[in-house]
């Protein structure tokens, strides 16, 4: 079984000291600048075109840099940020309800269960107010009041209305805004866009990130692209679980390859499981679909009291139903935070009270709300979600309760970055969900869009400027021995995948890996299960490399080869995720260790021993990874035990 050693702590995060309110201003002032006329001589690679990558590419190009940008989709408009539903948080205080930069900062640190870095979160809250200005100027059609001003609503776990939204399609609208800004720069010749092209490795020369090796997914050609800095905006790793709310193509390969080239990977065990997703309907299930958190405002969650009750829900009398969230958490009821609601649903299903196929579901019932407010009111509020549910399940949620079950939705872990969003490899920057930075052990709703755009529009352009201005970059060409070496490793691996010609499909391995991780590193984890999974993964990996079947050749559009590459990386990534979960002997946010719970079954943090970021260093194929700890200090928001009863 994979083991680890503990290395030197990570001490310097590059965050300025002094009062937290002034840190970002100070950093911006201290950052060196590149003369505008010289910027076009510098090349910056951006991998990914979601909210973080799209906004970063557009902004760097506006500043004058020559940007080379990649996405595996056929168009930069399709990155998975497009699927975000609810909204985006901004500390504008338009409602005059007592919101402020400090309150958003406070809510985010607390929501992250005191496992994030205060300096970063404060900056996120500060720049949030500029994001909404930027998006409105681009023509993003946010919801508005009749007076023509922007509307806001409330979201999970906060007491102010700071969430801006565009019906249930906020992510789509913000992404299209960034995509259009990027399109303008493509037309101007400042961005060289490579759609249907996937990063397969990182080029590190003299200790600095200088480029990537990428495969053109249409022709199969493997090519090296060189630059002065590399930005990864490649998203999260939720698909390691096979079934998740992520897009099918979302993958961890870019961050995993960068990790193997020297970038530390932080807190991979912090994964967010969203409580309200449509349950799986069978073995064929290829992905899961989220139903917005907002439904818990009016829906009541329950299961039958009697185990294995097969009666249709409407025939189960009131006194034979267990509204377990209202029973266990009387003050928050159905609106407890995501991690709590997910775990409670799991407990009910584990106890045999679940409903639907395989007993993996609970009811989300709108009958009372419809009786109280009328069908029309519910339709106006949630119509599109009800339609989506009906389309997928063929059940009418106005007449029978929805069935929901938790699913993997977001990953808080990612590549370790300092205050400048730079990884442990100089010149390699990581933004958006791909980094670990701002959400600690649990992300609040409507904060992912905020972070992606904060990183891309406002933070990264300043820090990349500084990095390039500091110089010291020598001229490198594609004939450099490191380039030749990495290219041949990439091609060799592709050739190997194609040559195995075994008996199992890529998907069958991915499904097996996913269910192993879901069972042992999902909503609840314990040492025995984690060890068991850690024992199984090397066997599964060995079997994969012995008996996977990848048809076709490398010189054409070959979707099975793309998948095989990604799953091969997930088979390594998953192992480190398990190890991280095993080494964090406490419960916090989305990471629930069964051994560490309060007498009433809530997460029990251990601030004395685990108030740190776990950053993992890769040491080679047969070497144990090294754990570097970044200690977390809380000068402004003092850790407390979260309670919702």
């Amino acid at each position: 079984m994979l083991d680890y050693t503990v290395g030197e702590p990570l001490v310097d995060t590059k965050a300025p000291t002094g009062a937290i309110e002034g840190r970002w201003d100070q950093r911006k002032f201290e950052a060196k600048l590149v003369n505008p006329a010289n910027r076009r001589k510098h090349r910056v690679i951006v991998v990914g075109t979601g909210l973080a990558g799209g906004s970063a590419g557009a902004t760097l190009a506006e500043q004058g840099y020559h940007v080379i940008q990649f996405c595996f989709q056929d168009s930069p408009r399709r990155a998975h940020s497009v699927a975000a539903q609810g909204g985006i948080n901004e500390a504008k205080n338009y409602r005059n309800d007592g919101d402020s930069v400090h309150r958003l900062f406070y809510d985010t640190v607390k929501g992250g269960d005191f496992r994030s870095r205060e300096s970063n979160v404060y900056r996120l809250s500060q720049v949030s107010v500029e994001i909404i200005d930027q998006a409105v100027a681009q023509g993003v059609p946010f919801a508005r009041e009749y007076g023509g001003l922007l509307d806001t609503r409330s979201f999970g776990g906060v007491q102010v209305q700071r969430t801006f939204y565009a019906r249930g399609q906020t992510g789509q609208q913000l992404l299209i805004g960034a995509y259009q800004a990027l399109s303008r720069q493509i037309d101007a010749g400042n961005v060289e866009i490579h759609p249907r092209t996937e990063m397969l490795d990182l080029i590190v020369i003299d200790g600095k990130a200088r480029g990537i090796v990428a495969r053109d997914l249409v022709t199969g050609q493997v090519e090296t692209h060189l630059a002065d800095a590399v930005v990864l905006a490649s998203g999260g790793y939720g698909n390691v679980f096979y079934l998740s709310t992520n897009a099918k193509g979302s993958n961890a390969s870019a961050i995993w390859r960068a990790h193997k080239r020297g970038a530390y990977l932080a807190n991979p065990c912090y994964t967010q499981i969203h409580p309200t997703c449509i349950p799986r309907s069978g073995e064929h299930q290829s992905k899961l679909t989220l139903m917005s958190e907002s439904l818990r405002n009016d829906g009541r969650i329950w299961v039958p009291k009697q185990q294995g009750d097969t009666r249709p829900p409407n025939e189960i009398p009131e006194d034979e139903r267990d509204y377990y969230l209202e029973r266990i958490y009387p003050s928050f009821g159905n609106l407890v935070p995501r991690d709590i609601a997910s775990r409670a649903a799991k407990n009910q299903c584990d106890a045999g009270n679940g409903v639907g196929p395989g007993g993996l579901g609970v009811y989300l019932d709108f009958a009372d709300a419809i009786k109280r407010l009328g069908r029309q009111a519910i339709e106006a509020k949630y119509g599109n979600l009800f339609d989506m549910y009906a389309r997928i399940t063929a059940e009418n949620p106005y007449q029978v309760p929805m069935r929901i079950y938790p699913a993997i939705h977001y990953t808080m872990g990612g590549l370790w970055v300092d205050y400048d969003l730079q990884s442990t490899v100089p010149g390699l920057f990581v933004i958006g969900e791909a980094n670990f930075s701002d959400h600690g052990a649990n992300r609040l709703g409507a904060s992912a869009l905020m972070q992606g755009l904060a990183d891309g529009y406002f933070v990264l352009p300043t820090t990349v400027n500084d990095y390039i201005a500091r110089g010291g970059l020598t001229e490198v060409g594609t004939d450099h021995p490191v380039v030749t070496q990495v290219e041949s490793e990439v091609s060799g691996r592709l050739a190997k995948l194609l040559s195995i010609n075994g008996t199992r499909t890529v998907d069958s391995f991915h499904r097996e890996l996913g269910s192993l991780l879901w069972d042992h590193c999902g909503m609840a984890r314990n040492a025995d299960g984690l060890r068991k999974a850690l024992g199984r993964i090397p066997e599964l990996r060995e079997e994969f490399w012995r008996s996977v079947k990848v048809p076709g050749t490398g010189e054409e559009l070959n979707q099975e080869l793309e998948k095989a590459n990604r799953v091969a990386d997930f088979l390594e990534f998953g192992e480190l995720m398990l190890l991280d979960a095993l080494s964090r002997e406490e419960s916090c946010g989305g990471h629930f260790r069964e051994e560490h719970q309060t007498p009433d079954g809530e997460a029990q943090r251990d601030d004395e021993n685990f108030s740190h970021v776990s950053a993992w260093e890769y040491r080679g194929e047969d070497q144990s990874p090294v754990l570097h700890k970044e200690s977390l200090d809380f000068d402004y928001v003092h850790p407390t035990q979260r309670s919702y009863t």
Partner: protein
Amino acid sequence: MKLTVRIWRQAGPDAPGRMVEYPVDNISTDMSFLEMLDVLNEQLILRGEQPVAFDHDCREGICGSCGVVINGRAHGPEQTTTCQLHMRAFHDGDVVDVEPWRAKAFPIIKDLVVDRSAFDRIIQSGGYITAPTGSAPEAHSTPVPKPAADEAFDNATCIGCGACVAACPNGSATLFTSAKVTHLNLLPQGQPEREQRVLDMIETMDDEGFGGCTNSGECVASCPKGIPFASIANLNREFLHASRAPRR
């Protein structure tokens, strides 16, 4: 459920293509159309045959990646994306024809995968509001009347899937272009570039090889996002207005 699917197979852009018949068995009505193709592909791979290539990503109807012509209709018998079409729309024993989008401006890459980058170039030519990062005024300094904001939103929901082009007898991209022009030209922020935007976007649309619009309305009937027919009339109005406006 047992079905026969007949799928367009084409090894590459220049290779000849043909319809190939496959029986598929054990199809559950809860499967999405793409999951049915997953099942078929898994069988093809194990038999040592090439799986069917098709574009897809989010599988929840928002990214716009997927899209095939099913029994002659873009995205199939229901007005939704292919990924949100479920097998309960079919019956045991059905024969289902599956083809790629067919349009001059969307060349076939392989099997059901086409190149839709012409859409990106239409946007690049003017489908944006110039607002470099950092230059934005305070958000509330520009009120937008709610009806304009709502109508702009309705048009902004376009996912760029290309069903409108595939459904159009002329292979026209007018609905796609009209949605973006209507979205941006309705908003106060979009006014300074209003005329140039529509002129440039229409020019690019024509250059890319999309056909002209004859108001047949097939695009609207196939659009999974319900982009309104009126947007085409609006595009024509904007174009007329811009063509007559003094050149800047």
